[in-house]
């Protein structure tokens, strides 16, 4: 019997806005001018937040910080596709997603200043705390989606991670289970093409990350991650599909980490200005602005107003962040278990007594 192909696969790519902001009109998602403006405003807010965080870090007012720059369309576009009750499981670079989901920027600053209270996410916000060990939160998202399904909640779970995370076993185990059990998850892989100093081609010999989904029995698609319409459209479809009970989707958003990995990193050690340059031209915010210009949704006074408003909101958040009293050392013990266990109580009392003995004595 001759050999014959029994299965063949292909992977789709979607771009709606080209680099000049020219749209492929039939593909444009149904967004009102007002919504388009608000997407632009979120991206600018994320950018201004990011710039401020870097400035604060330089002044020693924040700790290590992982910049978002370049990934605004991926983050804002996908977050905008979610419904209010949907859940987000972020990794650590998702401040743009957090901002769209209504996480107070004050808390984001607090978290990156090394203050645990920055993770006290208000309960009505379906947003899990930051997860630093790369890829390890992906199964949690799948579990939450499964629970939602069992409880018949019409909820979709979006999980964010990077290209580097696709090399971790947890990623593969999570993808596999999501496929086997047909769960309402949207995997949002921000392929910013770097995992610290490692280019994406060092993570996989496959030409796309999107194709990994095929092996797990569901759709993977690659989108231009700097084109907010493409990201939004594909994410919206994936969310609706998941909500309809039609299972998971993997979205590879091809974008670029325009800054250092974190403030502890120096990207000039492993990548050249030449490599970065084309991506400056592909800046996601510029691209939407060009489109808005073409559509007469843009004036320079509008642009200024958006920037000024973003700066005002960020400055306000910095003020709130810096007005927080220092954390209470007892906090270190309070959240280890539901109740303080006897050994912990003893340890806490020891520490508090130790600190009290050292307080300057009041006359």
């Amino acid at each position, binding site marked *: 019997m001759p050999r014959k192909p029994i299965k063949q696969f292909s992977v789709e790519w979607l771009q709606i806005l080209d680099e000049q902001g020219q749209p492929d009109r039939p593909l444009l998602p149904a967004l009102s001018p007002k919504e388009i403006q608000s997407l632009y405003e979120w991206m600018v807010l994320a950018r201004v937040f990011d710039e401020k965080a870097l400035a604060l870090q330089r002044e020693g007012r924040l*700790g*290590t910080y992982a910049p978002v720059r370049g990934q605004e369309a991926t983050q804002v576009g996908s977050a905008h596709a979610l419904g209010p009750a949907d859940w987000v499981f972020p990794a*650590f670079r998702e401040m743009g997603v957090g901002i769209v989901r209504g996480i107070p920027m004050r808390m984001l600053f607090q978290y990156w*200043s*090394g*203050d*645990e209270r920055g993770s006290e996410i208000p309960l009505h916000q379906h947003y899990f705390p*930051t997860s*630093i*060990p*790369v*890829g*390890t939160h992906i199964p949690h998202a799948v579990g939450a989606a499964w629970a939602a399904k069992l409880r018949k909640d019409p909820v979709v779970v979006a999980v964010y991670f990077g290209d*580097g*995370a696709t*090399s*971790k*076993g*947890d990623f593969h185990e999570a993808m596999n289970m999501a496929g086997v059990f047909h769960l309402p998850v949207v995997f949002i892989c921000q392929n910013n093409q770097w*995992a*610290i*100093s*490692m280019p994406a081609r*060092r*993570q*996989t010999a496959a030409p796309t990350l999107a194709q990994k989904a095929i092996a797990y029995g569901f759709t993977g698609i690659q989108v231009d991650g700097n084109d907010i319409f493409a990201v939004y459209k594909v994410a919206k479809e994936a969310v609706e599909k998941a909500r309809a009970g039609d299972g998971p989707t993997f979205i590879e958003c091809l974008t670029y980490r325009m800054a250092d990995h974190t403030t*502890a*990193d120096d990207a000039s*050690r*492993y990548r050249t200005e030449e490599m970065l340059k084309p991506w400056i031209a592909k800046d996601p915010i510029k691209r939407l602005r060009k489109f808005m210009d073409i559509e007469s949704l843009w004036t320079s006074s509008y642009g200024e107003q958006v920037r000024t408003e973003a700066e005002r909101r960020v400055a306000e958040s910095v003020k709130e962040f810096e007005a927080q009293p*220092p*954390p209470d*050392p007892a*906090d*270190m*013990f309070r959240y*280890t278990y539901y109740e303080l*266990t006897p*050994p*912990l109580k003893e*340890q*806490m009392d020891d*520490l508090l007594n*130790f*600190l009290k003995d*050292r307080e300057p004595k009041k006359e």
Partner: protein
Amino acid sequence: MPRLNIVQAVNQGLRQEMDRNPAVIVLGEDVGLDGGVFRVTEGLLARFGEDRVIDTPLSESGIVGIAIGMAAYGLVPVAEIQFMGFLYGAMEQLISHASRIRTRSRGRYHCPLVVRTPYGAGIHAPEHHSESTEAMLVHTPGLKVVVPASPYEAKGLLISAIRDPDPVIFLEPSRIYRAIKEEVPEKEYSIPLGVARRVREGEDLTLISWGAMLQPMVAAANHAATEGISAEVIDLRTLSPIDSESILVSVRKTGRVVIVHEAPRTGGLGGEVAALIAERALDYLEAPIVRVTGFDTAVPLPKMENYYLPNKERVLQAIHHVMEV
């Protein structure tokens, strides 16, 4: 003699072992072009090339698992895990395989690999970058666990770790990576594994620790000296196998003990040291053994890590306590 910090001393040790033995290779995340996030492997890629200095995908279980296969086949892999908090993904490989290849093959295969990883708090880093869970590793028969406390120590112990025929976990105290410089001989030398070091001689009590905690402990000992208390300071250096003899000799002399570690208290290695002393030197004790440790909590984020970490004052308080009894 050149004065080096720990980063430079480890780097030199790696380079010399790679020069000496072509089977020694380095692998891990960002260890090549970037020279490692702490720059410990800086310059190795240029010197030894991509076959011997391997930038891997982001894959801790893969890194350690592959190192096991390489080691069994005859290489001497030195794997870097970027931070101890990211070692957990590789624990199955360490516990179920690296530590047992020798046992399982009845001595036919062995696994001479080294896993280097920075450990410990005090570097103002995000969550998971401050772990000190050495007891989990010590509790795995078949692994050796080594923690250097200074540049000279780091080079000599690393060379022994690389030459050791069994898997060695080499925990580098990130807090003092660049904090201390001391004379480190350019020539190769080794410090045997399994032998503790007396850092300071004393008569009244024995202070026992390892790694980054040596610093506050020695500072406390120096302060105690100004009060007329003579503290002997022991750096365990190798946590597994532990040097019982050095501990017991000192305790039989002083009769008083303070053990310091930044790891959580419960199940920490301090308990093991205390049990050893209770079993074999109880009659010599003049005061209860006291531990100064981290708490049974996650290491807090930077704003609170100073509350978590044992410091000179907490060690001093313990010294006063055992001296008063």
